[in-house]
C-alpha cells in the first residue's frame, strides 16, 4: 500500500517538476527544481529495482550536474528567457513533440512487460566473469569494450570543456572567507574518501563501482575548489595528466594483453578476471573523478575584470 502510494506520488511529481523546470521564469529557480527532479528520479530508479542507476543519477545526474549548473549561473548575468513568448512562436514544435511522444507511448505499451531480456545469459556466465554483481560484469567484462570507449568519451569531454572555458586554466580562485565552509570541507574529506573506497570495493558484488566512486570524489574536489585555495586542475601539470590518464592507459593495456596470446580483445583469463577488473576500476575511479572535477571552471573573476571583453 505505502509502496503504491510512493510510486503514485513519484509518477505525479516527476512530470510536474519537469514542466516547472521548463516554465519557471528564473534560471536559478529552474536549477533548484532540476536538482529536485533529479533526486526524485533517483528514487524512481530505486523503486524500479535499479540501485546502480539510482546511485549514478543521484551522484552525477543530480549532485555534480546541479553543482555545475549553479556554478555556471554565477558566471552568467541572469536574464531569464521569455519562455512563454517563444512557445507562442513555435506551435509546430508542440505538435512534433506530441507526435513523437504518442509514437513512443504506442511502442512502449506494446512491449512485453515481463520480458527478462538477457538476464538469464548474464547470470549463466557470472561465474566466469570474475565478479559477482551482474551490472559490474556487464560493464567491465561482457561489454567492457563499450566502457573503454566511454572512458574516451569522458577524456574528450574534458578537452571540450577546456575549449569552451578558456579562463578555467588561468583564474586564481578567491577562497571563501566563511570559516564554516572550510571546517565542513575538513570534516567531509575522510568520509568522502571512505565512501568512495567502499563503493569501488563493493562494486564487485553489489551496486557500486568506478563511476559512482569517481563522482563522490569529484564532489569532494568541487567543495575544495569552492572553499580552499586549490585551483581547477590544469592539463599543463604532469601530475594532473598522470592522474587523468593512468586509468585509461591501464584499461587499454588490460584490453590488448589477451591479443598477444591468441585471444580476443578484453578476453581475460577466468582466474585473473576478478583482479584485473578490480585494478582497472580502482585506476578508473581516479580518472573519472579528475574528469568530473575538471569540468568546473575556476571562480568567477571580479566584475571589473570581465567588463567589456569577450573571451578571445
Amino acid at each position: 500500500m505505502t509502496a503504491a502510494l510512493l510510486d503514485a506520488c513519484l509518477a505525479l511529481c516527476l512530470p510536474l517538476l519537469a514542466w516547472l523546470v521548463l516554465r519557471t521564469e528564473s534560471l536559478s529557480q529552474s536549477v533548484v527544481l532540476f536538482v529536485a527532479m533529479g533526486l526524485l528520479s533517483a528514487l524512481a530508479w530505486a523503486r524500479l529495482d535499479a540501485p546502480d542507476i539510482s546511485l549514478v543519477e543521484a551522484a552525477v545526474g543530480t549532485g555534480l550536474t546541479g553543482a555545475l549548473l549553479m556554478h555556471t549561473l554565477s558566471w552568467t548575468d541572469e536574464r531569464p528567457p521569455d519562455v512563454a513568448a517563444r512557445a507562442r512562436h513555435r506551435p509546430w514544435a508542440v505538435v512534433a513533440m506530441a507526435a513523437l511522444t504518442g509514437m513512443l507511448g504506442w511502442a512502449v505499451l506494446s512491449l512485453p512487460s515481463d520480458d527478462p531480456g538477457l538476464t538469464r545469459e548474464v547470470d549463466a556466465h557470472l561465474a566466469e566473469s570474475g565478479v559477482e554483481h551482474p551490472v559490474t560484469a556487464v560493464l567491465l567484462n561482457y561489454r567492457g569494450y563499450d566502457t573503454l570507449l566511454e572512458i574516451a568519451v569522458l577524456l574528450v569531454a574534458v578537452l571540450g570543456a577546456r575549449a569552451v572555458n578558456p579562463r578555467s586554466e588561468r583564474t586564481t580562485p578567491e577562497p571563501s572567507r566563511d570559516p564554516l565552509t572550510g571546517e565542513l570541507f575538513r570534516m567531509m574529506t575522510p568520509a568522502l574518501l571512505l565512501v568512495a573506497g567502499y563503493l569501488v570495493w563493493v562494486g564487485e558484488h553489489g551496486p557500486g563501482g568506478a563511476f559512482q566512486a569517481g563522482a563522490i570524489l569529484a564532489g569532494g574536489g568541487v567543495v575544495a575548489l569552492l572553499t580552499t585555495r586549490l585551483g581547477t586542475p590544469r592539463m599543463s601539470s604532469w601530475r594532473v595528466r598522470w592522474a587523468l590518464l593512468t586509468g585509461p592507459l591501464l584499461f587499454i593495456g588490460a584490453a590488448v594483453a589477451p591479443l598477444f596470446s591468441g585471444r580476443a580483445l578484453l578476453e581475460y583469463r577466468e582466474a585473473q578476471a576478478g583482479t584485473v577488473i578490480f585494478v582497472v576500476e580502482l585506476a578508473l575511479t581516479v580518472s573519472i573523478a579528475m574528469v568530473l572535477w575538471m569540468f568546473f571552471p575556476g571562480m568567477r573573476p571580479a566584475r571589473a575584470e570581465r567588463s567589456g571583453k569577450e573571451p578571445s
Partner: protein
Amino acid sequence: MSPTAWMAWPVILPLLGAVLALLVGRKGVRVVAGVASVATFTASAVLTWEVATRGVLRQAIGGWGPPLGIEWRADGLAVLMLLTIGVVGPLISVHALDHLGDREDREFLPLWLFVWCALNALVLSADAFNLYVTLELVTLASVALIAVRRDRPGLDAGLRYLLFALPGSLLYLLGVALLYGLYSALDLGLLGQRITPGPVAWVAAGVMTLGLCLKTPLFPLHVWLPPTYTGAPTPVTALLSALISKGSYYVLLRLWLEVFTPILDWQVGQFLGVLGAAAVLWGSLLALSQSQLKRVVAYSSVAQIGYMFLLFPMATLGARTGAVYLVVSHAAAKASMFVAVGNIHQAVGITELGGVQGLAYRMPFTFLAMALGGISLIGMPPSGGFIAKWILLEESIWTGQWWWGLVLLLGGLLASAYVFRILRGSFLPLPPGVTVRSIPLGNELAPLALALIALVLGLVPWFPLELLAVGTAR
C-alpha cells in the same frame, strides 16, 4: 598474431595515440600523433588485405559473442571505409598542422585521433548499442574540434553542432532501447533475424532513421550544416564533411540493408529518396547563389549527401555499391576542396567568392586540386564521382525508377555551374592591391593528393569494387 586479432588495432592504436599525446604534454604531441597515424594506417591496410584475401572476419570481443557480448565484423564495405578514413584523415591533419596555430595544433591532434578511433570503431561494430557509443564519441570530439580555436564563430558553430547532433544520437538510442526491449538483442545480425513488423519495430526504425538523418544531415534537417561548416576552422570542416558526416550515414545504411529490410514498405524508401532528390536540387541551387566561397562548398555537401539517399528507394546491392562509391569519392573530393578553400583564405584573407580572382596563376596546385575535386562532384569522367553516379544511374533504370536518374543528371548540371563559377573567377587577372601570401608547399600538395585520389578512383575502380563485393553473398 591471428588475422582476426588485426581487427583490434585500427581502433586501439589511435586511442592509445590520443591518450599518449595528451600525456606527453606540449613537446611530443606531433611525434606521438605521427607515429600513431602511421601505425593506424598500417593496421587498417593489413586488415584490408586480410579481408580481401580471406573474406569476412569476425571477432567476439571479450570472447563472449552475441547476444551477451559485442562483435566486430569486417566485410568489404567496412574495410573500404577504414581505408578511406585512414588515407583522407591524415592528409587533412597534415594540412591542419600549418593552417592552425601552435596551441590549436596540440589540441587538434589528440582530438583527431579520438575521432579516428571512433570512426574505425563505428565501421567495424556490429552492435546497435556499441554503435551509439561510437556516434557519441564522434560527436563530442567533433564539437571540441570545431571549437578548437576558442574564438566566437568557432564556439557558436560548435554549440550549434552539439544542439543538433546530440538529439540525433538520443533518438537513435531510443530506437536501440525499443529494439532491445522486444528482441533481447543488440547484435545487428540477430536483430535482422528476429525483427517482425509491429509498432515497436516501426517506431524504432522511425526514430533511428530520424536521428541519423539529423546527424548526417538530410534535407530538410540540414539547417545547421552551412553555419557550422562556415564557422569551424577549415581543416575541421574538411573532416566534418569528408568523414564525420559519413559515420551516421554508414550506420543508417547498415540498419536499412541488414536489419530493417523485412519491415519496411517500398513507400518509406521512396520517401527518403524524395528527400534526397530535394537535397540534391535545393543544395545545388543554394550553392549556386552563395557569395562566400566556403558556403558554396558547404551547400554542395548538402547536395552530395542527397545522392547517397537515392540508395534507399532502389535498395539493391548495385545501388549500395554506387552509394558507397560516392561516399568514398566524395570524401576525397570534398576534403580536397575544403582544404583548397583553407589555402585560399590563408593566402588572401578574403572569404568572398570574388577573392579567388587571379589566384590560379599564384596557387596552381590548389586550383588544380579544386578543379579535379570539382570534376568528381559533377560526376564527369574520369573520377570516382563519375563511377558512382554511373552505377546509380544504371541501377535506377534497372529497377524501373528512371526518375532518380533524372535527379542525378540535373544535379550534375547544377554542380558544374557552381564549380565553374569558382574556377572562372580564378583565371581572371589579379585585382590590383591584393597581396598574396605564399603558402607552404606541403599545404599546396595536400589538397592535390586528395583530389588525385578522387581521380584514381575513377581510373582504377576494380580494386574498391571487388573489395565492396566481399561479404555480400548472403
